[in-house]
């Protein structure tokens, strides 16, 4: 009889292990918009990059998968007598696809310590906009470089202007190139910015301005009926993906006319909330050779800039034979802000060995006959530099102090998983401790069970 009790006990114990194995990791990680937590369906994606230069200009070509391209950003929709803003920036993906796709690239020439080892992580302070617990304010709390603060971990301790100017002259900033599917692409522009004491645009005007008159609470511009044959788009068609590259779906000097409040606007009339325009000054450095297109499930974008713009305070100057460090981000599935995919830092060589080698070419445009450099991109979660460098929060903080590169210990897939777990750290630690206790109890119970049932009788 006892052998059956023994067999039953071992079976129950084994069964509980199998059950635990098949149900572990469930019950905690789920979207929680109240805490600004929305977990992307895919935690990693891929970006393909090529680079080429001719001594005058440098070209970067980016290609990444997007199931449904998002060619709109925020729009103004006429509803019951007033114009209502829809989408643009929001928590997680926008179900109406009113948040544009983007690609961005940070560049350094070796002047920013640790960027080559940790990439964009060094720019993520605590309490940035959209982080859980950060109050919503009018002022965006953007990424920044650690040495621009008297306390690197405190966003509010910005150094005096004179110190910031000294840092900038020493090259302590990251060049930031951006491409936006709505707010720059239709007019074949990019956007040239930087990350230093904040993330911002270079000197000059950017590729768009906001189409909103605060005094009248109306748009400033509408579609020019004489040139476009319409005054507005239809909202159902906008969210239904009916507009394509062959349509006029954006406002620019060629398509816009001053807003006419006397038109009989009807519910669902839709006007872009941004008006595209020519850029100026240093901000105009990054452009496209032609407006990018989405085809066969991929965006294919090429940005170009003069290698030496002369703007040494907000651009990194490229030189033949030079080495640089890059970090990329792509935005897809109508997501923005921190709901993006980032890369680990990678090296760029102009005609010399690096992870990404820029090919030298002669003639009008690059031939692009070199193979793509494949980059694994990952969702970064809410992992901040203060957390990573704090020995009480990160077991690898001592390795960072020793300047061991992130890629030596972690890969993008791991970092994506860690990024998600950090968003639920307190709950997971609590549940893990309960699991530890319950499983320990089970093992002790098994010990008691076996010692009670087994016999010392000879066979």
């Amino acid at each position, binding site marked *: 009889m006892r052998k059956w009790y023994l067999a039953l006990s071992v079976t129950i114990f084994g069964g509980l292990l199998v059950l635990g194995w098949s149900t572990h990791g469930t019950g905690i990680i789920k979207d929680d918009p109240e805490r600004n937590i929305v977990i992307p369906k895919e935690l990693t994606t891929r970006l393909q990059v090529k680079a080429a230069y001719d001594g005058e200009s440098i070209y970067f070509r980016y290609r990444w998968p997007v199931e449904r391209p998002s060619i709109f950003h925020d729009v103004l929709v006429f509803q019951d007598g007033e114009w209502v803003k829809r989408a643009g920036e929001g928590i997680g993906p926008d179900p109406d696809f009113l948040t544009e796709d983007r690609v961005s690239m940070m560049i350094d020439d070796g002047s920013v310590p640790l960027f080559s080892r940790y990439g964009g992580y060094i720019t993520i302070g605590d309490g940035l906009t959209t982080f859980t617990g950060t109050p919503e304010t009018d002022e965006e709390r953007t990424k920044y470089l650690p040495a621009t603060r008297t306390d690197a971990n405190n966003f509010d301790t910005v150094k005096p202007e004179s110190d910031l100017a000294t840092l900038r002259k020493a090259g302590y900033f990251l060049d930031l190139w951006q491409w936006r599917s709505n707010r720059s692409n239709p007019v074949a522009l990019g956007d040239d910015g930087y990350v230093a004491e904040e993330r911002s645009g270079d000197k000059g005007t950017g590729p768009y301005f906001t189409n909103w008159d605060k005094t009248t609470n109306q748009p400033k511009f509408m579609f020019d009926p004489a040139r476009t044959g319409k005054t507005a788009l239809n909202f159902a068609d906008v969210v239904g993906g009916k507009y394509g590259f062959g349509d006029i779906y954006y406002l620019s000097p060629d398509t816009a006319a001053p807003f006419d409040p006397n038109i009989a606007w009807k519910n669902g009339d839709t006007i872009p909330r941004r008006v595209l325009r020519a850029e100026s000054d240093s901000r105009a450095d990054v452009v496209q050779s032609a407006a990018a297109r989405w085809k066969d499930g991929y965006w294919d974008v090429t940005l170009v800039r003069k290698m030496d713009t002369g703007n040494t305070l907000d651009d990194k100057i490229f030189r033949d034979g030079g080495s640089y460090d890059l970090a990329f981000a792509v935005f897809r599935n109508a997501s923005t802000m921190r709901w993006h995919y980032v890369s680990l830092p990678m090296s760029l060589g102009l005609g010399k060995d690096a992870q990404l080698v820029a090919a030298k070419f002669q003639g009008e445009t690059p031939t692009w006959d070199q193979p793509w450099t494949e980059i694994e991109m990952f969702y970064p979660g809410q992992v901040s530099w203060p957390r990573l460098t704090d020995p009480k929060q990160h077991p690898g*903080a001592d390795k960072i102090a020793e300047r061991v590169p992130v890629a030596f210990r972690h890969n993008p897939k791991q970092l994506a998983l860690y990024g998600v777990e950090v968003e639920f750290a307190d709950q997971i630690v609590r*549940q893990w401790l309960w699991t530890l206790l319950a499983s320990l109890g089970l093992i002790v119970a098994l010990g008691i069970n076996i010692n009670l049932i087994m*016999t010392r009788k000879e066979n």
Partner: protein
Amino acid sequence: MAVYHILVVHFPVALWLTAYLFILFRTFSDSELAVRLQKAVWPLIFLGSLAGFVAYGLGLAIYPWSAITQSPLGRNHIMLATWTLSYWTVMGVMGYRYRRFLFEGAQRWSTFALATIGAAVVTITGTLGGSLTGTPSLVTKSLDLIGWNVYMTFYLPNWMLLVYTAGAVLLIVIGFYGRRSHV
């Protein structure tokens, strides 16, 4: 402290797995050699547990508790190390109390099954330690294939915690029933 943990942890791993090897041999053999080796099982397990406690303590001293419990891999390693240590200690008590009777009749198959679980647990603990120091093995990848990505914390949902608690109570109740059945 990490280097000492890595140094010491080889002892319990080697001792427990040697004990498992002897159990395996004895399960399938009644030869004189197997019987002789079986006598070394409980001392090996206890020595392993002794070294295991030292390794466990050294391991906990590597990082601050607040830091290691913020790492999914760290949490998993602590979890598995706790399982391993407690499980093999229980096995040691069993081995000491029952010695050769562990392999009498049908009991040998229970002994074999329980020891195999112990060998699996110690192997997983070791591979997690390797992953934690940046040297993941094929075992890490294999675990992913059978449902556990070790870079995510192993924790049970609330209802499973209740099931585990109920299971523990049930095992003890069965133990008493089983004891009564052969008194």
